[in-house]
């Protein structure tokens, strides 16, 4: 089937390609409806990845957060028009111990496989999940919610059981979603968010407390922490967490940094701190996310961080969306009409 696919050929330069797609009985064709821009897509778009990475990966179809409606399922398992979330991780092997999103062989859309900026996405039927009554704009960033779910599930498996106070560092979208979902998992824990912007922190009405990072009391301690900062500031955040975490606490790392952060490992050793890496998510995380987000109150909170919804009818509109996303505090959603 001829498919219209939009690829980033060089930074800020998108082009339409046509691909002859193959489909089998296991394929379900999904028309993307609402897509959301992730910081990772933005880094490719702006050309902020290392040159050798850009040389290797471009041309690349961006976007790995999105929902769509089923266009065609030969087997009839999914109904035409049914709204589904698309799981960007595609495992190619089965492993009983290691989760699919950590297998080095797995393909991930908008990185090692085509992302969702297409007229139709050819999904394997085990990579889509009906979203039920979830609002479509909110549905566009279910993937990012599932990344938080993956990190929290990891945290539950690996962190010690004293979870009286949990600190979240970062007041962007990842910090917001992680705090919100963590609160639904641990309603009795005190969840405190650390950030740099009072305005952004004021969105976190469901957190037990918020603090500005320069105003932390010396005797302020958390049992565990989530680092949701990423980028060049991640280094400061991780070192501040190391100072303010109780012994044997777990630091769940969620932010992506291009440069290697320098970490106070002496104190990591002294306190017996566990650094827990988290990346992406798998089918089971999406399943749990879709269940959690059915809650109308959570959907309301999620709606509050849609900074802007932009209608996309052509490539110029996509360029506009990526440009405007740079100035948005939280999520930029694209209503996909291509």
């Amino acid at each position, binding site marked *: *089937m*001829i498919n*219209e696919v939009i690829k980033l050929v060089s930074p800020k330069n998108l082009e*339409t*390609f*046509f*691909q*002859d797609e193959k489909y089998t009985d296991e394929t379900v*064709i999904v*028309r993307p409806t609402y897509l959301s821009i992730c910081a990772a897509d933005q880094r490719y778009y702006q050309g902020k990845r290392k040159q050798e990475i850009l040389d290797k990966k471009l041309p690349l179809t961006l976007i790995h957060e999105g929902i769509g*409606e089923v*266009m*065609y399922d*030969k087997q009839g398992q999914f109904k*035409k*028009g049914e709204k589904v979330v698309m799981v960007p991780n595609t495992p190619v092997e089965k492993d009983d111990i290691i989760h699919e999103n950590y297998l080095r062989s797995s393909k991930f859309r908008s990185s090692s496989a085509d992302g969702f900026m297409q*007229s*139709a996405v050819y999904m394997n039927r085990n990579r889509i999940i009906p979203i039920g009554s979830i609002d479509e704009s909110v549905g566009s960033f279910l993937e990012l919610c599932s990344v938080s779910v993956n990190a929290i599930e990891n945290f539950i498996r690996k962190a010690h059981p004293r979870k009286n106070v949990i600190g979240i560092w970062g007041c962007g979208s990842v910090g917001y979603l992680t705090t919100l979902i963590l609160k639904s998992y641990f309603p009795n824990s005190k969840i405190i968010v650390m950030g740099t912007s009072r305005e952004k922190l004021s969105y976190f009405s469901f957190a037990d407390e918020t603090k500005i990072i320069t105003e932390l009391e010396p005797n302020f301690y958390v049992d565990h922490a989530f680092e949701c900062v990423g980028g060049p500031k991640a280094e400061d955040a991780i070192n501040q967490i190391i100072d303010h975490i109780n012994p044997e606490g777990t630091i769940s790392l969620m932010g992506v940094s291009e440069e290697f952060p320098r970490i106070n490992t002496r104190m990591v050793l002294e306190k017996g701190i566990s650094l827990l890496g988290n990346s992406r998510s798998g089918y089971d995380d999406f399943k749990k996310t879709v269940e959690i987000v059915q809650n109308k109150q959570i959907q309301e909170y999620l709606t509050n961080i849609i900074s802007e919804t932009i209608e996309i*009818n052509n490539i110029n509109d996509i360029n506009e969306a990526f440009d405007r996303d740079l100035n948005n505090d939280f999520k930029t959603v694209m209503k996909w*009409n*291509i």
Partner: protein
Amino acid sequence: MNFGGILAGGKGTRMGKTDLPKQFLMLGEKPIIIHTIEQFLISPVIDAVIVAVPANWITYTQDIVEKYCKDEKIYIIEGGSSRNGTVMNICKFITENFKDEDNIVVTHDAVRPFVTQRIIKDNVELCKKYGATDTVIPAVDTIVESKDGMVISNIPVRSQMYQGQTPQSFNVKAFMDEYNALTEEEKEILTDAAKVYVIKQKQVGLVMGESYNMKITTKHDLKLAKLMLNNLNEEEE
């Protein structure tokens, strides 16, 4: 209900020495017509696809549909002797088999496989609004009119000129009523279905096409289409 109406009545005399009508030539791994049918088959706004082909190509078309995109929503019928005759055959088939006053048919050239989902969707939406649509792109070149083929008789304002593509979409019942009300003389000069509405001073909504929604009518077009699908090397072999 909304129908895709694939017009494949032509025998492809413009393509050169090929024996197969042009809609059956391979583009990548499938015949051109299959690519076109597939776009309508997967469209969320289309309920069934009617494919009209010359009488002696019906069995052949059934064979390739069976091979590449078998689906109970595809119907293969006989085309007419002219373009509008083919459109009418599709309309008659729809009227006889799916009784509904609001039936819409989105007619499309079999040899335009790069039609997009957006174009199909816009056709259905605007057809509901206006009763008929035509898919166009703004004219790039200045249009020059010459009545005798020797000297210019007129140069229309380019910004008001568009090039017609397909799909063209209609309310099935209204189109049949309009067409049946034409005189035989009028029917003969009408090579374009949208013109049936224009001469009756009825509104036809404009759907923006795409430059790449090209019609594959020459060997050069086919080469370009293969290049667009990144199959140039295959073509050269």
